[in-house]
């Protein structure tokens, strides 16, 4: 196993842990935590490929991570604001109780 493979495995595991949180936990905030984990897993992939890939002096990977972090910040702000707004209206933070669109 090369070093790159190790980081990729770490990234895959991190991603799946995050996915598990999104799929199983009912609290919206935990789902968001899962989403953050998945984003971080992706970032880790970028960094790993950028550093341990064939072109360490290319900056695309780094740039991607920087922008991805910014997007994550925006996502967290809007997502948590949504959570708070929904909580204020429905008095719950549980995903399975937010089913107003239920068919």
């Amino acid at each position: 196993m090369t070093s790159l493979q190790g980081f990729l495995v770490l990234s895959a595991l991190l991603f799946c842990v995050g996915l598990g949180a999104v799929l199983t936990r009912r609290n919206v905030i935990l789902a968001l935590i899962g989403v953050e984990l998945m984003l971080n897993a992706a970032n880790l992939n970028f960094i790993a490929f950028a550093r341990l890939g064939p072109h360490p002096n290319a900056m695309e990977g780094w740039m991607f991570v920087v922008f991805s972090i910014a997007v994550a910040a925006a996502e967290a702000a809007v997502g948590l604001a949504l959570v708070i707004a929904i909580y204020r209206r429905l008095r719950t933070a549980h995903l399975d109780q937010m089913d107003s669109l239920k068919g």
Partner: protein
Amino acid sequence: MSPIVSWLWLVPALPLAAAAVLCFLPDRLRRFALPLAGGAMGLGFLLSCAALSEAARSPSAAGVHNFLWLEFGGSPLMLGWILDPLSAAMLAMVTFVGFWIFVFSAGYMAHDPHYVRFFCFLSLFASAMLGVVMANSLLLLFMCWEVMGLASYLLIGFWFHKPSAAAAAKKAFITTRIGDIGFLLGMVWLYGESGTLLFYDQGAGCLETSAIARMAGHAAGAGMMASTGISLLLFAGAVGKSGQIPLHVWLPDAMEGPTPVSALIHAATMVAAGVFLMARVYPIASALPPPPPVAQVASVASAPNAATPDAPAPAASHPSSLPSSSHEASVSAPTSVRSTPLPALCLRVMAWVGALTALFAALTAVAQTDIKRILAYSTVSQLGFMFLGLATGGVAVGMFHLLTHAFFKALLFLGAGSVIHGCHDEQDIRAMGGLRRWMPTTFVAYAIGMMALAGVPLFFSGFWSKDEILHAAALWSPSKWPFIIGVAAAFLTAFYMTRQMVYVYAGEYRGAGRGADGGGSMDPHESPSLMTIPLGALAACAILLSVLGTPVWPWFHAFLSGHAPRFEPSISLGVLVVMFLSVVLTAGGIGLGLSIYARAPSASLADEDPLEAWRPGLWQILRNRFYIDELYESSFIAWHAALGRFSAWLDDKVLGAAVESVRLAALGLAWAARLCDEFAVNLGFDEACDCLRQAAGRISRFHDGQAQRYLRFLALALSALAFWILWK
């Protein structure tokens, strides 16, 4: 035309503008209400004085200002105003009395929460009255007349939270409307006859010679000339407004309004408007048919007592008389030969109505205990006098009494207001007494007013004006009964005013639970100077006005009739006789009053009146105002109610049944349509929809709104996809 005429519109416009401003004035700026309303009134008074002097300089030439208001197709509708002695005198009187009443109101209503609104209404009212006075068009006069009715409704019902006030306001409004229907009909008829509603229009007005002649010559059926019918209808309006029998019932009830309102309505303005109206249309009312054959004019006789006791009788006794020109002749010819032609029918009706009202109201006033009600009945009585004077002696006689009465009755009402204010809103004269000590200024002013009303000779204006009326009535040719009735009424006037004075000012204070020895804050007190100053001003006028109309120097008559006054040092015997008679009457009335009431002033509230002890039956009749209200209640109003019930029944059962049957028919049709729709058309569609819905329901079970479930499926699918890609 002098410039003052073209600016005369300012006189009513100023109070109107004040009213408009006042109705938007917030209550916290209430200190501006009096300056605004009173200032408008004072300015109006100054303008009126200028107009009066203008009119006095050339009394014979009426200044007229007409303008186009509307145009119906080809026929213009003109309105206008007029400055003649009549309107000038009225303007000056109304603005002067009104100004002092405004001042008085500021004191009287100082603590009312709706002070500003009150002044707004007062200004509106004054503006309407001034419009009535200076109108040169019957239409304009009618419009102002109706605004005045509205304003009086608002003012009488000013304290609308009191049920009695609200009822009185409605009563006044409705009762006067009955008369106004007559007015409206008369006006329409007048327009039909003369083609114009302008009074004076350079020869084309309806009060000018040609129109009068045309109307008087035009028979209207039932033995009447057109002019007679018109003037009788207009008189109906005047009866309503001026509270004559049989429409007098609203006026005493109108005492529910604030006292300054009573003063304004019952003394100076609204009730006088009726008299003024008749004075204005006097040319029509007094119009005689065109000159009959010479023989009748020449026939000379003096036959008093010949007329039937009831004025409309001549017309009624000849229902089938000739429709042609001379019903007067047909009345007079068979009865007797007389020196002068019989006065116009309208004037005779007026005389009788006036005389009867004077007596009736005076009798009723004797038995009242409410200080304002006594004055109200007194007003009704005095208005009867005015009509009597108008009918028998002409415009000047009636108007002179109107003017003098305006001042002293306003004085009396304001005095009563002062008394009520001083006694903490007590209105029952039995609960007063001894106020001479507490309220000396009010007492003096009230006494002057009382003496003017009672006709105490020489120094008080009422004496001269009433004397003139009696004199004119005595000389009235058709009948002497009005004179006799008037004499009785004059006697009663002195009597009931003495009674009231004694009750209110003599003896000990009888207010419940308070008194001279109580010394508490509930003692009566003198009113503030804001209220006593108007009393003084009006009292001065009540005395001073007498100089204008003495037989020795009848300036006012001359002014009204348009020629220069003459100084007549010698008074004719007839006048002296009547004068003497009235002195005796007054003295008798006062003496009788004093002898009955002043000898043993009642000591407490519960004491019964000496008259009641003397004749309880008669007293009850008088006390209950001859049961006229009850009579109306059981007759007209009951009939109306029955008619209303019948109409309701008709609407409900007959018309309603028809509507119901139409409805049922429509319903049946709709039922049929619906059945067809449901069982024929919808069934197939519904089935199809149901199929779709069930199918969709099965599919939609996956869409349970659980985001995580969707994601789980996604994840499984992703795994499967990855698996397939990697190890296919």
